[in-house]
């Protein structure tokens, strides 16, 4: 319990900064909604001259992306990137700092099993991410009513916003595992940013090409907002895949952390 509280204190500042950043981006981008909606309406009106097939196709696309939930989904893709970064950072940091700050000897010579040490860390990081996730879900609903003033499917919104939490957890797991495998990480951000960026790029490729392999690789595309809006549920395959990554990642972390040698630095 003392380790859990210690880790929570250590993570407090960064959790606040991340939460505020996510909310700032949410509010900034959502505040453009009315203007973009007007742009779109004006454009749809001047589309009169073009052939009906194309007008219809583009019109549907425009309507979709400028509906409250459609626009929110667009904004959400940026939030998701930051969230993934928070998750990865938290995971990498909570493990690697002991080696970086030379505190591993301190902690590991205390009368605690390695399992109880890693559990305390795991739960503390989980708590930080949960706090960010829950605050974000609540704020996303408030921002939606505030900036769109239109009716929308509340269930779909909550489901979309919750995927931030799931995505953060996946990246948290990856960060945690990475730091357990590579104990001598000197700078957290120089590991987490390139990794998250790589997954983000794979996500872009997935959406440009529709390639299934890219989608499986890119964690960012596991939860398609358009699918959620239409079905008010997640795709089972990707929900299972997420849970599997998290469970396997933590199981591996436990096994490796319990067995590895901790060297003097």
């Amino acid at each position, binding site marked *: 319990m*003392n380790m859990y509280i*210690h880790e929570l204190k*250590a993570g407090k500042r960064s959790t606040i900064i991340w939460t505020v950043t996510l909310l700032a981006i949410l509010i900034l981008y959502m505040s453009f909604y009315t203007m973009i909606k007007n742009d779109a309406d004006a454009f749809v009106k001047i589309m009169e001259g073009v052939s009906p097939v194309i007008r219809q196709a583009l019109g549907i696309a425009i309507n979709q992306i400028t509906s409250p939930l459609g626009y929110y989904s667009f904004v959400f893709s940026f939030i998701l990137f930051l969230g993934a970064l928070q998750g990865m950072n938290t995971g990498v940091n909570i493990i690697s700092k002991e080696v970086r*700050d*030379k*505190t*591993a*000897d*301190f902690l*590991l*010579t*205390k*009368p*605690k*099993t*390695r399992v*109880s040490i890693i559990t305390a860390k795991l739960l503390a990081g989980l708590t930080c991410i949960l706090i960010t996730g829950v605050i974000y879900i609540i704020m996303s609903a408030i921002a939606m009513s505030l900036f769109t003033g239109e009716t929308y499917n509340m269930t779909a919104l909550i489901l979309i916003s919750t995927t931030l939490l799931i995505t953060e957890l996946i990246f948290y797991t990856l960060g945690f595992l990475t730091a357990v495998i590579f104990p001598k990480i000197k700078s957290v951000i120089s590991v987490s940013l390139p990794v998250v960026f790589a997954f983000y790029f794979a996500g872009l490729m997935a959406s440009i090409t529709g390639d299934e392999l890219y989608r499986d690789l890119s964690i960012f595309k596991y939860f398609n907002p358009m699918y959620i809006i239409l079905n008010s549920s997640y795709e089972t395959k990707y929900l299972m895949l997420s849970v599997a990554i998290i469970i396997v990642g933590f199981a591996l972390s436990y096994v490796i952390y319990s*067995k590895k*040698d*901790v*060297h*003097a*630095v």
Partner: protein
Amino acid sequence: MIKVIEINNLTKNYGKSRGIVDVSFDVMEGEIYGFIGPNGAGKSTTIRTLLSLIYPTSGSAKIFGLDCVKDAATIKKDIGYLPSEVFYYDGMKVKDLLNYSASFYNKDCSKRIKELTDIMELDVNKKIDDLSFGNKKKVGIVQGLLHEPKLIILDEPTSGLDPLMQQKFFQLLKEENEKGATILFSSHILSEVQRLCSKLAIIKEGKIIKIETMSSINDNNYKKFKVEAADEIGEDYFGIKGVTDLVIKGNEASFLYKGDINAVMQKVAGLKIVNISVIEPDLEEIFLHYYEKEA
């Protein structure tokens, strides 16, 4: 006597590079046990294995009769550890770190923290980041002793401490020892081991090359005699068994002696002495002696 530490054929390989090979020794309750060897000989590897920071390739070690790997957490309740390089958490005050450290042991350590910080003259309200190396070291010492451990493990603990502080630190260790604590003290500085320890193991290139009690090391070794007499000393006056390296210059004689001390004292008593010195050889010389023999 009870074995506090029991190391049996402990081996640790780091790939192909150095490690320890077949290390065995026992530390009895109440001993201050010296563990000595040059840099890179395997002292830290042995200690880190005892603390289950690293795991043995083969062999085993027991502390308080419990297995070092399996019962690591239980064992550590009664171990205090001070590494050569101290650690600190970012942005923590001294007292925060000490309280955090204390929170791992299910007892009230506040009184002991107060005592120790007073002895070490440590300002608990300072941030650890702002402390000098020596002061960080003191935090390490207090941190390692605050729960009144039954076994204190020290890995080259004195670097960075001024002589006065070192004195206090040794005093502290002796007090802990008198209260019943067993101490394993690793060092490459022989004089401090000589001052403190009752028994020692010498390690070189990952292997234990000698285990001796301090007294037998001292007994079994040469004493340096320097004698200045009122009259000239005869060339073969000290020609008895056990004397070597004899040098006689007029009134002065110097030699090394090993054997029954009475025999040489009788010879000395036969002279009119102006001045005499009998010097115990320091560990340095003994150490070199062992090293050369093994090399």
